[in-house]
């Protein structure tokens, strides 16, 4: 599966690890619940850990862990729900998160440009065929007011 990361179409290197699946080598994403329970094991496994965040998740619970987490996936419940726009921004400016922030779920490619402006640097589109169009939208505007 391919995604956009840092303005390039690249292979996704993370594997989705379900809550009841046992830990294996390589880059994985886990739920917040699993992270809170198994933080130590997750960190000592061979590979990087990404967190799958939903709109319900409270980021302050992991504020101190953020420098150990390589990827935060923000899962859009609906493209009209703009809360994650502010959450992403706060992750960067308030929590100083430096890792990858990836949009997944129900957002649309026409939101990729704005998301890129507020700190989301990776995009997993439900329709992979749209990746080239989405990539092109990153150049929709050459200037911004904010």
């Amino acid at each position, binding site marked *: 599966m391919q995604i956009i990361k840092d303005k390039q179409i690249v292979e996704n290197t993370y594997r989705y690890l379900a809550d009841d699946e046992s830990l294996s080598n390589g880059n994985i994403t886990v739920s917040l619940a699993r992270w809170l329970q198994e933080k130590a094991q997750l960190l000592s496994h061979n590979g990087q850990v990404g967190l799958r965040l939903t709109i319900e998740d409270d980021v302050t619970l992991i504020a101190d862990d953020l420098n150990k987490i390589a990827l935060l996936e923000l899962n859009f419940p609906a*493209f*009209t*729900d*703009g*809360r994650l*726009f*502010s*959450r992403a*921004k*706060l992750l960067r*400016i*308030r929590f100083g998160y430096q890792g990858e922030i990836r949009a997944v779920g129900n957002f*649309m490619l*026409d*939101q990729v*440009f*704005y*998301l890129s*402006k*507020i700190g989301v640097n990776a995009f997993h589109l439900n329709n992979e065929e749209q990746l080239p169009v989405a990539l092109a*939208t990153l150049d*929709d*505007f*050459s*200037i*911004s*007011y*904010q």
Partner: protein
Amino acid sequence: MACSILLFILSYRVYTRIPTLCMYQYNDNDQTIIEERVVQFRGQTERFLKGELNEDQFRALRLMNGLYIQTHAPMLRVAGPYGLISAKQLRKLGDIAKNYDKGYAHFTTRQNIQFNWPELAKVPDILAELATVQMHAVQTSGNCLRNTTTDHLAGVCKDEIEDPRPTCEIIRQWTTFHPEFAYLPRKFKIAVSASAQDRAATQFHDIGVHIVKNAAGEIGYRILVGGGLGRTPIIGEEIRPFLEKKHLLSYLEAILRIYNLYGRRDNKYKARIKILVKETGMETFRQQVEAEWNAIKDGMELSDARFAEIKAHFTDPAYDKNAAADTSFAAHLEQNSAFATWIKFNTKEHKMDGYRAVFVSLKAPDSPPGDITDACLYAVADLADEYSFGEVRSTHRQNLVLADVKQADLYALWQKLSALKLATANIGTATDIICCPGLDFCALANAGSIDVVKEINQALDDIDYIHDLGDIKINISGCMNGCAHQSVGHIGILGVDKKGVEWYQITLGGSSENEAAIGDRLGPSVARDEIVPAITTILEVYTEQRQEEESFLTTVKRVGMTPFKEKVYANH
């Protein structure tokens, strides 16, 4: 509609001066952004027409570009940034009305311009044309930051603390394509006022910005939040009594972030910030906003240089210092009572001696409020060039203003406006009605509004009587969404649906000005054939009850609903 006949007369006008504009002019960046937007929207429209975007997705995108799908056709809303329009832009609007619409345009209550009949596939072309004159339809609808509005007398009235337009322009730039706030719970409207008399309905906006002076004599902002009309009209409350100017954008950003994070998204009728403020309570809401603001304010300060740079766009035009020396104006006033009446109702005093601000009435008795033909758009553009430094403003009550007219020119201007049917001397009176499109154009309407206005005009066809009634604001909306602000009309008329039949509910005593108030219901709603008699009855009761020069609103406050109720429902 008589304009076309008269167009040839006006085309005799001599281009004596092409005025230098004293309004914000795009720099290369502004122009680039707006052109890139046209390309972006063209791509989105093409993808929709090819089936690559579904209805829901395209709806969100087109709304953010002012495009509604209405009863007959799409409706395109073009932004009039805080109401300023140059003559050149007005001509372009005329071109669009002529070439893409049915020959007219409509001015809205938020200083925007609407076209009711464009073809979807041609909208990208319309936007491309608008971009050539620094115009666009960006964020004129949808759940995003909308066009910022202000006083139509900004910069020329006597009672302002400072010109609000530079503040508006700074807000305009900040709101335009703000990446974080494009998918808000609901729409978001900001209005700015700088004068003692609030002419921008700031107390009924999501954020109202008042330019004020503190005890130390410094100019800053008083910030109101949580006002709004629509289904649940609420008067905005003060969240901060004084904000230093340099913090304007950080404070707005803090409010918007809290709203974006916590505003309700489960029910669109409870999604406006007014509901969040009410449900959270002002104290808690303020704490949340101030905490956020304290975290971001140092990084977002506006420099003096930035204010100065923007302010430089709004210098005074080249006023004639001797304008007051003219004696013809006084002579005409004395000789021509129709002219004197028009001066009294349709012009306002100006900060410069020898100048007045002139209202172009879009409320002729036989024309839908706020509508203007392509021919009249061209004609007003010419009049603006000739008499008012090439600039026009649109007002919150759906009229136009030529803000800088020399007194010596008033008589000629009046004659020309009269010939165009744009000089009905009714500004601020009972026939200067705010009206929404209602059943004629709007898919959400319960009842017609344009025809009711027409009939009110027929019933009140004695202009002396209208003048005698004085300051009366009648607002009529075709449904409870309240596009025409009926809840804050001195007399509000609201279309309601009773088993598929049009009925109207009446409220009295509302106001969107300083003494902001939401009107009280008079009683049960009335049928279609009773609404106009009810309005004339209300006006008669006022003339019986008023004491001396008392205004309608004051009389309603003093005598209450009962005398009105008794007469209106006398036959029931």
